[in-house]
């Protein structure tokens, strides 16, 4: 609990004016296919922003651009004021791997497919980056990893390999692996989409706790209930553009944008029986 609160607490002085994430005019193409067009988005400290929209709308691509797992072609993405992936000035050059690593240390990512390392136990998964990236000694890393597993309710599974965990448990280990690094920002790429319906709740609960502790989160999701109840802001993407943006209330109930209305209607139809 404590570690997460520490990580999420905004610095007391200064810097509050600098947004956690600032996306300006970002575009990206795969060949002739423009997947992101002129995206502007700001995420302030301790905010939860959900990216929603039909599949293929570019929301996962946008999220992956934020920690440069995906390369964007145009515009700027800044995290705490620092340009992501490129050096300042023109003509811009790609950052070195070392610079990227420094930046990524402060940005955690949770994936749809969990992406745990199958040859390491739950504890090993959480401790790994503490040793490799933070340079902690093994005993200290293991102790901290145990705390983090406890934080997501999995202290009892510390010695289990991922193959023996349910999807919901694997995703909670993946979250513990990220929060152990005390990120300033967490990116979630459809964190519950690969889960059986009965396991979605446990993962969303952990995410709710993180949000309540003040973690800054950008979440690509199809869980409209989570977006409506937890998000501070919702961005609706369609064909690589942000078609609607605002509070959940503004987007879900007050938006006149026809694409949003149609998307939500499809969603409701699918989820009613």
């Amino acid at each position, binding site marked *: 609990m404590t570690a997460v609160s520490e990580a999420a607490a905004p610095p007391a002085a200064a810097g509050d004016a600098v947004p956690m994430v600032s996306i300006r005019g970002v575009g990206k193409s795969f060949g002739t296919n423009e997947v992101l067009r002129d995206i502007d988005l700001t995420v302030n400290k301790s905010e939860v922003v959900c990216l929603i929209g039909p599949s293929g709308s570019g929301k996962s691509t946008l999220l992956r651009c934020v920690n440069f*797992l995906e390369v964007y072609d145009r515009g700027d993405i800044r995290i705490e004021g620092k340009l992501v992936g490129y050096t300042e000035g023109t003509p811009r050059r790609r950052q070195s791997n070392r610079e990227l690593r420094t930046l990524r240390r402060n940005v955690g990512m949770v994936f749809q497919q969990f992406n745990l390392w199958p040859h390491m*136990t739950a504890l090993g998964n959480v401790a790994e*980056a503490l040793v490799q990236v933070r340079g902690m000694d093994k005993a200290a890393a293991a102790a901290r990893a145990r705390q983090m597993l406890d934080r997501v309710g999995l202290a009892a599974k510390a010695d289990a390999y991922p193959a023996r965990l349910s999807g919901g448990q694997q995703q909670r280990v993946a979250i513990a692996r990220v929060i152990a690094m005390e990120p300033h920002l967490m990116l979630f790429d459809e964190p519950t989409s690969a889960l059986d319906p009965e396991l979605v709740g446990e993962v969303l609960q952990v995410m709710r706790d993180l949000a309540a502790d003040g973690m800054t989160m950008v979440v690509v999701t199809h869980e409209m209930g989570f977006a409506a109840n937890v998000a501070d802001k919702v961005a609706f993407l369609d064909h690589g553009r942000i078609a609607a943006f605002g509070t959940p209330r503004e987007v879900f109930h007050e938006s006149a944008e026809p694409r949003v209305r149609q998307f939500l209607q499809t969603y409701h139809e699918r989820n009613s029986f």
Partner: protein
Amino acid sequence: MDSSLIVQYGPALLRGFGVTILCWAAGCAIGLVLGFALMLLRQLPIRPLQALIRAYIEIIRGTPFLIQLFLLYSGGPSIGLRLEATTAGILGLGLYGSAYFAEIFRAGYQSVPKGQVEAALSLGMSYGAILRRVIVPGMLVSTLPAIVNMMAILTKETVVLSIITVPELMYEMQTMAAETFATFETILGMALFYWLLVEVVSRLGRRLEARVTRFLSHSSNARA
């Protein structure tokens, strides 16, 4: 079967067996290290280098080991490469194995799910750390059966070294057969020796496999 033959030729055969094992082990070591290096170099986005490595692999795999060995041992001196028979044998075996190991490793490298690497990248891990801690352990699981298989094949390829007078088992056996005309015993003995060697290799391999895949066992029926 004449038991005096065993007394007379036993020591030479044992020495030959020792040389066989030495050549095989050293050849495998060179092949594995070089094969891994070739696989890694091939990942670099340098087209000419990739083409060069591909050509090397195709040539090695497309020509008989016997001819490669002749070229190295007999053709070597013409380009100033004068090797002692055993050295040439070990090097030849290593070069031969490296092409196959490089292909096995390449398949293994590609079999590691991209997401596992992305997870490591997103945590700020360096490529070296990702290679050591994520990729190689993952590769080991998918490639170990193929690696062991190739090593078993190489035990038998060592017989070719007798052609360039490496005093390994085949060479000693041929000497014995030529001097005693005990052809049947010789062939039987050879088969036994190589079978024993292959058996030991595959047993060790199975053990190693069980060890590196233990985390996959009891995967229960936990569903996603």
